[in-house]
């Protein structure tokens, strides 16, 4: 102790000693009062990898915004999913929930209260600490009527918004108005917003205008595996690794592995494939069946192509079953006598050669379906829905029993002698559906029905089926983001927003529709998974027998990557290939 301090201390030793020890005491007290929390990680189960390299993903359209409240299309949602994290996440591969930012969740016995214990020591991508305050702020924003977030409807149960209360700095309580069928799945994709960056815009009413693509990287932060780096208009979006990400692999390495994710905008699916073939992209997803086949036939050893099996998308044909009494659409009303007869619809379903569609349009990479739940939804598919192969004989029998017959020219005529012909509209931008209709047109000609195919631009078609109701039949495809029947609530109950075939229902509704309404409402408020499955199975059976829609096929999820990319496991829920972007790493190359 030769420091000059030593002399001074010895001069006024007692005072200095007192001061120093009180500082120490205060510090100790402070540590007791405010513990710097140790960082808690989520340990992933994927194969541990190594760091390095960039991932270039080909996208057919540009993301439009980075604001979770304003994102309404899939590419934007995909990017935001890379930048942000939710409390509880649905694993896209297993389709089950797993904890994310929440370390654990305690559910009350009546299924109405969720006590969420947050992971501790987590930091945002700019280093700022995460706490329950951010969760409260997030839900306040999403539930605010002035913000009009799409998440608000998902968080409104039985007409009442979810109640959010802070219990302590890392525990939050959520309370639903009634038991909620999907349960904790509701928290998936409800991304936690950074209070320290968004509080000011929110109080100024400018939250909806924040975080567009011109945002400065320092003004945006999230809890996801990557953070925003650069946007080059019309070309690419560059994301870089989040150094504060709260997940690590089994070897204790902090995820993600890759340094950058570069989303290259290409304009169309064919352009994506060209870019992939040319080496300009490492990953492509949502390939069409024919392009997938063409790539597979080239047997390029530097490419891995994966068919992940049937997706959740179902393509279906439906007829105009609306009440047209107040509209001046006589020519369609007279055809509705045919459309409303269930035997007519069953005959059409019987006459469609689904196997030919799978073979010709999708090169075998699709599945014929007879209900709205595809084989991709492993947990919810009813075993009671019978798959009936194409039978022209059965179609003819059904039609004959419904009062139809055939004239000299082998054309189908109804009981009053009118030849049966109608048009089917479909959006022009999906060539596979147009091809499907070409097959269906030929199939129905075999039983004497003349079908006209009319391709319309998407919005004019939507205007016809939702507003003017001036159409005979329509072929579209829908895909819900989650396999859970909760996402189908906007389709099946009469009066629901996507209940396209009967936007204006006839009164009284048929018995099976009333039954479907009852079953759907019941499964939403039950928290017994077996009970929900039983109820939803019944819905599927009713749909398959009464055919308000005629399901046709469900395409497979097809994706490709460059060889050397490990942990590449395309799933059938969106986002198909980037759902585990934090686990992807380069084995051999890069």
């Amino acid at each position, binding site marked *: 102790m030769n420091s000059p301090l030593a002399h001074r201390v010895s001069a006024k030793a007692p005072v200095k000693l007192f001061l120093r020890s009180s500082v120490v005491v205060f510090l100790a007290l402070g540590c007791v009062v405010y513990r710097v929390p140790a960082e808690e990680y989520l340990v992933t189960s994927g194969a541990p990898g190594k760091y390095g390299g960039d991932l270039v993903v080909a996208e057919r359209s540009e993301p439009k915004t980075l604001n979770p409240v304003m994102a309404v299309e899939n590419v934007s949602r995909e990017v935001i999913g890379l930048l942000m994290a939710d409390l509880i996440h649905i694993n896209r591969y297993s389709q089950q929930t797993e904890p994310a930012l929440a370390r654990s969740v305690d559910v009350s016995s009546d299924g109405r209260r969720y006590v969420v214990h947050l992971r501790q020591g987590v930091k945002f991508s700019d280093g700022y600490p995460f706490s329950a305050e951010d969760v409260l702020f997030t839900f306040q924003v999403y539930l605010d009527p002035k913000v009009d977030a799409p998440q608000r409807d998902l968080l409104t149960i039985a007409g009442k918004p979810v109640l959010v209360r802070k219990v302590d700095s890392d525990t939050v309580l959520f309370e639903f108005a009634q038991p909620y069928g999907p349960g904790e799945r509701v928290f998936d994709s409800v991304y936690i917003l950074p209070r320290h960056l968004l509080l000011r815009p929110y109080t100024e009413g400018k939250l909806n205008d924040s975080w567009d693509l011109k945002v400065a990287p320092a003004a945006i932060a999230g809890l996801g595996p990557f953070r925003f780096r650069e946007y080059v208009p019309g070309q690419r979006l560059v994301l870089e690794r989040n150094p504060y990400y709260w997940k690590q692999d089994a070897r204790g390495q902090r995820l993600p592995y890759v340094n950058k994710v570069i989303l290259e905008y290409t304009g169309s699916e064919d352009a994506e494939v060209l870019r992939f073939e040319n080496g300009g992209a490492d990953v492509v997803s949502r390939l069409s069946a024919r392009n997938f086949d063409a790539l597979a036939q080239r047997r390029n050893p530097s490419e891995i192509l994966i068919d992940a099996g049937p997706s959740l998308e179902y393509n279906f044909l439906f007829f105009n079953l609306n009440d047209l009494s107040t509209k001046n659409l006589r020519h369609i009303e007279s055809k509705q006598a045919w459309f409303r007869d269930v035997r007519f619809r069953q005959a059409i379903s019987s006459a469609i050669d689904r196997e030919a569609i799978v073979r010709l349009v999708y090169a075998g990479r699709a599945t014929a379906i007879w209900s709205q739940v595809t084989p991709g939804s492993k947990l919810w598919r009813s075993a009671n829905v019978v798959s009936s192969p194409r039978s022209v004989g059965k179609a003819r029998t059904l039609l004959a029993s419904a009062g139809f017959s055939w004239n000299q020219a082998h054309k189908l005529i109804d009981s009053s002698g009118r030849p049966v012909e109608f048009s089917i509209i479909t959006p022009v*931008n999906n060539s596979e559906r147009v091809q499907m209709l070409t097959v269906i047109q030929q199939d129905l000609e075999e039983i004497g029905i003349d079908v006209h195919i009319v391709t319309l631009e998407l919005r004019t078609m939507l205007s016809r089926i939702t507003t003017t109701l001036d159409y005979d039949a329509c072929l579209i495809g829908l895909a819900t983001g989650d396999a859970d029947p909760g996402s189908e609530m906007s389709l099946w109950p009469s009066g629901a927003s996507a209940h396209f075939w009967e936007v204006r229902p006839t009164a009284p509704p048929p018995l099976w529709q009333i039954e479907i309404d009852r079953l759907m409402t019941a499964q939403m408020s039950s928290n017994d998974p077996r009970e929900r499955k039983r109820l939803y199975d019944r819905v599927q059976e009713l749909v398959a027998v009464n055919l308000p829609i005629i399901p046709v096929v469900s395409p497979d999820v097809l994706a490709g990557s460059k060889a050397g990319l490990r942990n590449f496991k395309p799933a059938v829920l969106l986002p198909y290939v980037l759902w585990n972007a934090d686990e992807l790493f380069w084995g051999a190359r890069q």
Partner: protein
Amino acid sequence: MIRGKSAIACGVLASIHGLALVANFAAPYSFAAQQREFAWAPPTSVHWLDRHGHFHWRPFVYGTNGADESRMYPLRFFVRGASYRFAGLFPSSRHLFGVDAPGVLFLLGTDGFGRDQFSRLLAGSRISLTAGWLAAILSLALGTVLGGMAGYYGGWLDDLIMRMSEISLALPWLYLLLAGRAFLPLDAPSSMAYLILISVVGILGWARPARLIRGLALSLRERGYVLAARTFGASGPYLLRTHILPDAAPVLLTQMALLAPQYIMAEVTLSFLGLGIDEPVPSWGNMLAGVQHYHVLTSSWWMLLPGIAPAVVALCCFTIADALAGRRGVVPL
């Protein structure tokens, strides 16, 4: 004068149009007939020498589109096939040539549904040629009237018409065309809907020929005989009808020969963008539009062959236009 190269061009054009008229007869199959087991089949090879080296006067094909060499199907003329209406009038089921079932003859291969591309090319020529000529006539007619008026009267009318032409060139008509199908009743046959669409495209294209006709009218109105007629009290419309337009006739004919192929190619572009005629009716445009898909571009090269048809028509028209323009040798477009 029409001679030499232009005579050949006229001949080729006449035969293409003739084929289009009797498309159903000349084609071995119906354009909508799907032979699903032969989807994406390459063109059938036609042989004169069999595998033993014997020469046959009558060409033949092997079974299963060339795969099965044990079966030979000779080419026959006036075969029985799918029934149709000859020139839309009387029913018939004879086709110019073909092979007996179960042999197949796909001269240009098949598409994804097993439909014979050659038959579709012939059937598609009806739509494409009609569309091209219709749009060209409408465009030229409107352009002549407006351009003639602008050039002859000059002054504020000229200014007005020229500015209108600039507006009509600038407006985003594609937006409306995309939604255009919405305005027509759903049960209107797709060919009629499509021709209405093309007519609209033709009418909208009045601006370019108008400019040319305006220049022509400007120069013609200063000609001696026109001035003389004016001093005699001839009115504007009379002069336009009797003196100016007849002199402009060669230019107009040349323009027709130039515009028609341009509109046929515009039809290809429109089909590419999704404005083509609906299935199952073929047109050259929607047959080529399928080539933008990666798998077609790289695996099914025969789908590019229908592109020869509009190219040949264009080449013939341009040759005729050059000949019509006379000794100058080339014609500015």
